[in-house]
């Protein structure tokens, strides 16, 4: 029962300091560290950590850039010295963050909160320690989405729909629909096809969010989602859809 953790910060001393503070928490196992965004992405893809401590201001790219580049965002605790812009983003989105120099009590709160979340998700077990770098994204996985000043960690089961817009995909969840820089085909490959269904060339829908199914022209179907979006299922995909539903 350990939380596999990577520390990402451009300052060696800051990483050392955090490492030392984390020694107090036996459940945290620091498996690696990185000193910039590219190195961080590489290490995350290599180890699939459960948790990262992430500095915002790093040379060249920010911590937000790192998260946007990941398919699946691990649990994240942001660390920053003082950055008005970032602090605003945190307040708006209630993301977990620690101000450097880090207060041990706040760190302890953050770690506790994480354990609690893990407890809820995995029904008693702590974090799964399964290496799953290339595994499919499950419903409980979260993705990081940023749209201008606002950013979110979104659980896949909250997403109703992906819509293709050029090179981007528009992500529908709650009342928001920000854009992410990913193609629909790439998304389809990573998503669990029992939950996410490619309705046509432009849309991937979450089957759990379907409200109504109606017949449509040409032997196709028209699906209405719980958010009110109406999506047409192409004739070819209708066959596949019926097959899945008849199971």
């Amino acid at each position, binding site marked *: 029962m350990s939380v596999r953790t990577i520390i990402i910060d451009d*300052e060696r001393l800051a990483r050392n300091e955090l490492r030392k503070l984390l020694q107090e928490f036996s459940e945290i196992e620091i498996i690696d560290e990185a000193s910039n965004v590219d190195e961080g992405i590489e290490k995350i893809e290599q180890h699939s950590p459960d948790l990262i401590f992430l500095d915002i201001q790093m040379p060249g790219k920010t911590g937000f850039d790192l998260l946007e580049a990941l398919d699946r965002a691990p649990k994240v605790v942001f660390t920053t010295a003082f950055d008005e812009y970032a602090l605003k983003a945190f307040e708006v989105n209630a993301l977990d963050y620690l101000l450097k120099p880090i207060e041990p009590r706040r760190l302890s709160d953050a770690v506790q909160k994480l354990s609690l979340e893990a407890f809820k998700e995995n029904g008693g077990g702590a974090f799964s320690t399964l290496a799953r770098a290339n595994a499919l994204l499950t419903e409980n996985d979260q993705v990081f989405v940023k749209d201008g000043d606002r950013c979110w960690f979104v659980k896949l089961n909250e997403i109703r729909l992906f819509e293709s817009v050029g090179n981007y995909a528009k992500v529908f969840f709650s009342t928001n629909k920000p854009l992410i820089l990913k193609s629909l085909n790439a998304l389809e490959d990573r998503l669990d096809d029992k939950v996410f269904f490619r309705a046509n060339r432009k849309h991937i829908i979450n089957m759990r969010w379907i409200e109504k199914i109606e017949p449509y022209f040409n032997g196709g179907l028209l699906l209405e989602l719980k958010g009110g979006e109406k999506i047409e299922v192409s004739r070819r995909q209708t066959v596949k859809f019926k097959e899945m539903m008849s199971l």
Partner: protein
Amino acid sequence: MKGTISKYWLCQIGGWSTYIIVYTFFYLTLRTKEQPFFFQVLFLDAIIGIAITHLMRFFIQKMGLLKLRLDYQIVYIFLTTIGFSFLFAFNSIFIEDLLQFTSEQFKQYSTLNKTLRASFGCFLFLLIWNLIYFMYHNIEKNRQEQIDKIRLEGLVKELELKTIKSHINPHFIFNALNSIRALVDENPGRARQAITELSNILRSSMQAEKLETAPLKRELDIVKDYLALEHIRFEDRLKVEYDIDEDTLDMPVPPMMLQTLVENAIKHGISHRVSGGTIKITSDFIDDRHELSVENTGYLNGNYNPEGFGLYSTQNRLMLLYGEKAHFEIKNKENNMVVATVTMPVTIF
């Protein structure tokens, strides 16, 4: 000003109405014998008076008499008044003659004679008119100047306050404290030294508000402390070079200006680069000017913001201190370097 009457016309109408009323009053109470055409002449004079004074106002404005020094103004008021008195008198006599208003008693005199006689009375009226006019404008000008001065002072204060507040970037302070905390175990000696450096910087930034200029040596000491702290943070990523002409160390410079430039160089130059870079500080006499420059590895792309606080405040402070004699610029140099240069006059005032 549509719908309302301007102050000027209010005074004109009020003044000349008073003139008519006063004359009528004396005429009705004190007259010894009836004057033919008294009221016609009185009204005619008031109307000519308005026309002449309006023309005089146009003349005063055209010549810019109000902008002259006060003693010149007095001379010019006098001359203008004399000139326009003749014009006033001549016009009023001429029109009266034309309209046959002239009393029998005066018909024997020539127009010139009558004009000269009337001029004296006109002179008094126009003098009063001009005194009021100039007094009003001078008082108004004075008041406006005072308002401007107060506004300017307020602006300067506000600017100073903003500059001081932004002298030391909070991001830097907290990062430095974080590094020092890590150093306490790793290298206690260096940690102690770092605390001294940080104290020096904080103290200097608090003192800066009291000074208009500070010797370069003092500013350089702060920057050295600052860069020593940043070196703890960046380690091998930061290299620092100095090229300082010893003679420039006593030169006065705006306090914390060099610090602001170095901070900018770190923030926009070094901290963005994974491999870091070099900062070079140069101070030298070029011709009869003192040139201070900060170079850093990096590239100035088009979207930097000249209104951004660091550069904006630097430019402003130089302007307040030296006026047009100082110069500030930031540009790309060869070898992937950005250089910010401040040029100041060697002798102030």
